[in-house]
């Protein structure tokens, strides 16, 4: 593999090296995706600035009123806390889903992979150079919103607006956000490589991302670990089980004396008034129970959720690499 400079016409020397480096892939990635990267970063930085600004103002004044005229911090904050739920979706649909399919649609994969670089090395470059910034943005966004939520909670004495196990606070945690971003990116990329159609893969990515997130959040998360059962007489039952003490109640109902779950006793159907009600329940030997997760399960649950999505992402990435390497047509 030798090439010698010949002729007077070649003024600039012929450059030769042993391999294509990461700097070269970084140049290509930036040149191709700079507007996507810049646009996403700009929006994230804006949200982070807003959240941190609010956190700082709330910390300084100890109040959640005043800014934005009649809007209260809380309402602005309640809109902002929805953004982490969307970020993984954005990464999947706009970063992952067009990545390979756009090359196929414009036939430019023949340009990129026809140089001194294999398709898998090109793909590895894109995955690392786009995936790591996406994960970093997700973590930053989550961190800023956690900071804001903690600040608002700290000054709201009568109740906590943001409950740790509730969806916004639970899912904004950086460790969870990184998992969602990785999953979104890998899901988009997998559809991109297999369908080779950008719009189709964007649609499939959005659909499946939402479906998987919903199934895990609603169907699996409450049972990451067996809940702790708390049983009490109905009239003694006055603890705030809605989770403001940091616990998460996932299920509640009635048990008989032996501890078996029973339906609401029909004998007490017609009873009026709380006191009568409690007495009726006591007479029929039925007590109230709540299945809940203690507050100290928060971080383990978040790590488990993150592990689920990171593992899914890893599987999808492996599939994508295999698919690209074993392409049956170009």
């Amino acid at each position, binding site marked *: 593999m030798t*090439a010698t400079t010949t002729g007077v016409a070649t003024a600039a020397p012929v450059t030769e090296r042993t391999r294509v480096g990461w700097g070269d892939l970084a140049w290509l990635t930036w040149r191709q995706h700079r507007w996507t990267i810049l646009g996403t970063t700009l929006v994230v930085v804006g949200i982070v600035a807003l959240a941190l600004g609010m956190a700082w103002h709330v910390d300084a004044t100890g109040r959640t009123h005043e800014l934005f005229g009649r809007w209260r911090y809380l309402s602005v904050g309640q809109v902002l806390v929805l953004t982490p739920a969307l970020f993984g979706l954005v990464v999947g649909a706009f970063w992952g889903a067009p990545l390979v399919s756009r090359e196929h649609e414009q036939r430019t994969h023949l340009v990129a992979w*026809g140089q001194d670089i294999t398709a898998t090395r090109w793909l590895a470059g894109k995955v690392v150079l786009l995936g790591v910034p996406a994960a970093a943005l997700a973590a930053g966004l989550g961190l800023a919103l956690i900071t804001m939520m903690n600040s608002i909670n700290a000054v709201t004495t009568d109740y906590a607006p943001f409950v740790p196990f509730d969806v916004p606070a639970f899912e904004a945690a950086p460790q969870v956000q990184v998992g969602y971003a990785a999953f979104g990116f890998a899901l988009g990329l997998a559809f991109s490589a297999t369908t080779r159609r950008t719009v189709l893969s964007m649609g499939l990515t959005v659909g499946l991302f939402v479906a998987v997130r919903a199934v895990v959040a609603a169907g699996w998360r409450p049972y990451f670990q067996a809940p702790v059962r708390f049983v009490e007489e109905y009239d003694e039952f006055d603890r705030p089980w809605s989770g403001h003490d940091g616990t998460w109640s996932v299920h509640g109902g009635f048990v008989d004396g032996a501890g078996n779950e029973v339906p609401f006793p029909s004998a007490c159907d017609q009873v009026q008034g709380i006191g009568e009600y409690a007495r009726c329940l006591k007479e029929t030997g039925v007590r109230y129970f709540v299945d809940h997760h203690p507050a100290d399960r928060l971080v383990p649950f978040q790590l488990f959720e993150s592990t689920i999505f990171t593992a899914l992402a890893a599987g999808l990435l492996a599939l994508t690499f295999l698919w690209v390497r074993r392409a049956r047509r170009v």
Partner: protein
Amino acid sequence: MSTAVESVDGTAIAVRAQALGKRYRGRWALRECTFDLPAGRVAALVGANGAGKTTLMTVLAGLLGADEGSAGAVGRVAFVSQDKPVYRHFTAADMLRLGARLNVVWDESRARRWLARFEIPLDSACGRLSGGQQAQVAFALAIGSRPDVLLLDEPLANLDPLARREVTAELLGEVDETGMTVLLSTHIVAELSGVADYLLLLAHGRLLAGGDLDELLTGHVSYTGPRSDVPPALGDIVEARHSGAQSTFLVRLPEGQPRPVVAGPWVERPPTLEDYVLAQLEATRKGLGA
């Protein structure tokens, strides 16, 4: 891919295919394809539409794996596909930068010279260039990477007649300067005269004929004369055409024997490349040859 390939008689081989086969969903696009392309040649890959030319080039370029047999090229390969793809948002200068970044060997001045030769603006987005201009950017990228083997799929399609001639001339100039091997596919045989010196003829995914163009043509003869069922001299009939009172035969001469002399009403002439290619393709369609 850089498989060391050495031919038996000592001449360097640039591209080698051995029993190469490639299948798309059960249908063979390429089958039992075996050839050696000597280094430094300009080879024409000829065949009807759907004969497997693009598939062969894609496999040789390393973009697609073979299902059977093997294929390899010596040294670095550059491939310009039929659609001459370029990144629409890149300028021509960006495309050259891409070439410099993604290749281990890069000759910036050679690439720029190609663009200057065809007056391609360096600073406007490729998406705004015409199809012909985009093709020139794709060629400049391939030339700049200083390949040992240059694969061009239908290089002259969507170029105007003048540009075709100029591209051909520039290409031959590059071959002279760098000694690279070129394999170019086309189904327009008329484009090839004076360009190619080696022929690979594909039909229905199989290699019909291959070899040095001069040897192939001197090994055949075309007879025209009165209507007859047999040609006036010995040899394998590649093609027989009869119209009215006239018959034309393309005959493969027996090896190692002097060219027979025909007389009387028969006229003998060496076949042109076009005669030869068309006769071969016609023969496969009728199921005679191959």
